[in-house]
């Protein structure tokens, strides 16, 4: 109970200066907007929208074709319903889509049987978007076509040596052939080990929103900044000897430390909560896709910054020194921890060094969710490591803590 009394006293002292509290939220939000704006063009999805109508839903080659479209750098496909097929012309005219591809019924079966059958591509090719889309689509169709041819040829050779047990066996052989051919296309210099039948699940590209980097980045950076408020309260308390006076009342030392730690953690937690809210609803950063995971990261980050605040207030004498040290910590931890730019951009060595900072793990925690589309479980390791840092900083702070 006394712990909470101390926490509430600290919080009431902090909010007394409401301008500072506002600053804690407004500043990082402005920075988020600024960073998002400067990095927007490079990250935005500039791929051309292409509508696809698939009348060969169970076919192996139509599936392959759609997969190839999905991997395209040039186009972004949207599958159309039957109903929309009748409006194809107007959809193209209104530039809803740069092109529309209609895969005919029996596409896979006929193609494998050696018949000449092609998807229908509708576009206005003297428009630049239409022209680019058609070029990309033709390339992809050709790629599937040659895979089919290759598979077919090799099947004929195999059949002549040792006939297939039946149609099903022949079909299976063909499908494997196509998969292999496709994989080969993905990696032009064919290596003998290349056997990958499924694509390696690379990071789901959600980096269409630049705020997915800057929003968590500024949350992490300003969480370190935010502890200035609560650490200053503690240092002032020690200077006025009120902290020492507490020791003449029936309060345990650990209760005093816990009360202050909790205040510090709550300040940065609330600060993060507001910024996550602004990020989610104003900037479209998808924090709430894994709410429990986000809460865990926020709590771990709050505990670590609180321990850092406790440590700083244990080491310094005056309020001005709190500000200096918090600023140093903020710049150091946010630059190294990837709050300003993704650590991967700076190379492997830098990323490795960066991950010695707790802030890098906080960034990982947030970005596993908002950038890489991970679920609640994806934060467990970052949160664990962040908590270990919190414990280490807390131990150091308690060891150096002074009441006078």
């Amino acid at each position, binding site marked *: 109970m006394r712990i909470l009394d101390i926490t509430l006293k600290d919080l009431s002292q902090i909010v007394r200066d409401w301008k500072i509290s506002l600053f804690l939220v407004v500043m990082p939000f402005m920075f988020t907007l600024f960073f998002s704006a400067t990095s927007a063009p490079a990250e935005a999805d500039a791929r051309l929208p292409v509508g696809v109508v698939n009348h060969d839903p169970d076919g192996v080659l139509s599936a392959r074709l759609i997969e190839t479209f999905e991997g395209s750098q040039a186009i972004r496909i949207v599958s159309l319903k039957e109903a929309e097929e009748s409006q194809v012309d107007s959809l193209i005219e209104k530039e809803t889509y740069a092109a529309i591809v209609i895969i005919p019924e029996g596409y896979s079966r006929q193609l494998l049987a050696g018949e000449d059958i092609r998807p229908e591509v509708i576009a206005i090719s003297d428009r630049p978007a239409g022209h680019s889309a058609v070029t990309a689509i033709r390339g992809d169709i050709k790629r599937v076509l040659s895979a089919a041819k290759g598979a077919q040829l090799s099947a004929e050779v195999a059949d002549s040596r040792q006939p297939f047990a039946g149609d099903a066996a022949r079909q299976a052989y063909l499908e494997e052939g196509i998969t292999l051919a496709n994989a080969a296309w993905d990696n032009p210099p064919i290596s003998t080990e290349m056997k990958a039948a499924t694509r390696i699940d690379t990071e789901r590209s959600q980096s269409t929103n630049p705020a997915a980097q800057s929003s968590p980045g500024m949350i992490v950076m300003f969480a370190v900044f935010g502890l200035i408020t609560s650490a200053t309260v503690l240092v002032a308390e020690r200077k006025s000897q009120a902290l020492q*006076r507490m*020791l003449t009342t*029936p*309060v345990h030392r650990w209760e005093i430390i816990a009360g202050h730690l909790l205040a510090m953690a709550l300040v940065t937690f609330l600060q993060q909560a507001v910024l996550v809210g602004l990020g989610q609803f104003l900037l479209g950063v998808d924090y709430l896709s894994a709410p429990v995971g986000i809460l865990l990261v926020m709590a771990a980050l709050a505990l670590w910054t609180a321990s850092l605040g406790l440590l700083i207030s244990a080491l310094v004498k005056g309020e001005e020194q709190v500000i200096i040290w918090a600023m140093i910590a903020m710049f150091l931890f946010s630059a190294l921890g990837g709050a300003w730019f993704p650590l991967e951009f700076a190379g492997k060595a830098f990323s490795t060094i960066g991950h010695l900072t707790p802030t890098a793990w906080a960034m990982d925690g947030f970005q596993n969710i908002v950038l890489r589309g991970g679920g609640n479980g994806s934060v467990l390791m970052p949160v664990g490591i962040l908590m270990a840092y919190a414990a280490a900083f807390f131990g150091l702070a308690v060891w150096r803590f002074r009441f006078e």
Partner: protein
Amino acid sequence: MNNGKAIEVQDLHRHFGDIKAVQGVSFDVRQGEIFSLLGPNGAGKSTTISMLSCLLQPNAGDALVMGHSITRRPMEVKKAIGVVPQEIALYPDLTARENLAFWGKMYGLRGKTLGRRIDQVLEIIGLVEQQKRPAGKFSGGMKRRLNIGIALLHKPQVIIMDEPTVGIDPQSRRHILDNVKELNRQGMTVLYTTHYMEEAAELSDHIAIMDQGQIVASGTHDELVKIVGKQDRVELTINTESERVLPAWQAIDGVHKATATDSIITLLVDESDRVLPRLFEAAIEAKVHITSVTIQEPNLEAVFLHLTGRALRDG
């Protein structure tokens, strides 16, 4: 409890590096009395108080407060005492009432009990009108009163006050001294430290005179004053350097101690009525002109001078 003793101090020692702040201090404070530690700055009063309020561990010795050892049962001691530190230890950005509320909670008070007690304390320290103002905006005297009020919230059996009247206006000092007497009248035991002998004389049932980490004398006011006997303290200002007349005055029968700074000479004399004319005679003979004379009957200042050879104020 404990034959009516609220505090029993047994041979306390405390040093800071080479500085021996407290060296072998012992005294008893009886329940219901006001006990003063009187001594100049640096005498070791605050260090003694800090040990009694469990802020500092003694290097040797122990003390019992309401029967609880300060080294073995600090929590019990803390519940029994209210401590008024020498510094104004409160939150300048919180109002008087908020300060009292917070400290009351530290002493374990809650809800209605706390609210009622805050009202009572505000009444005692005379800050009812100003309770909603931030403590940082108070005058020195008001801050001192609030500093005291905090220690009264939980109605402690013993209140320990460390120089609670330093640096304030006479009115606030009067208020505080009256508070101390009133609290004592209601049954609180008071341990009071000061370097103002008038305060010690006015308030105390018992006084211990402290100097250089030791208690040099203790007793009631009258007992202490008897140490210097019937000696009066005579302070004379002359129009020239003291050396011109000092030897002649020291030679006069009935003059005991003489100290001089520039043209002010302080003497301890038996029966000033008899000695004074002879001082004037000697001055005329030495062609020295006396510009002012003050005579003080025996007091604690004189006792301190007698015991240590130094004045209390600039100790």
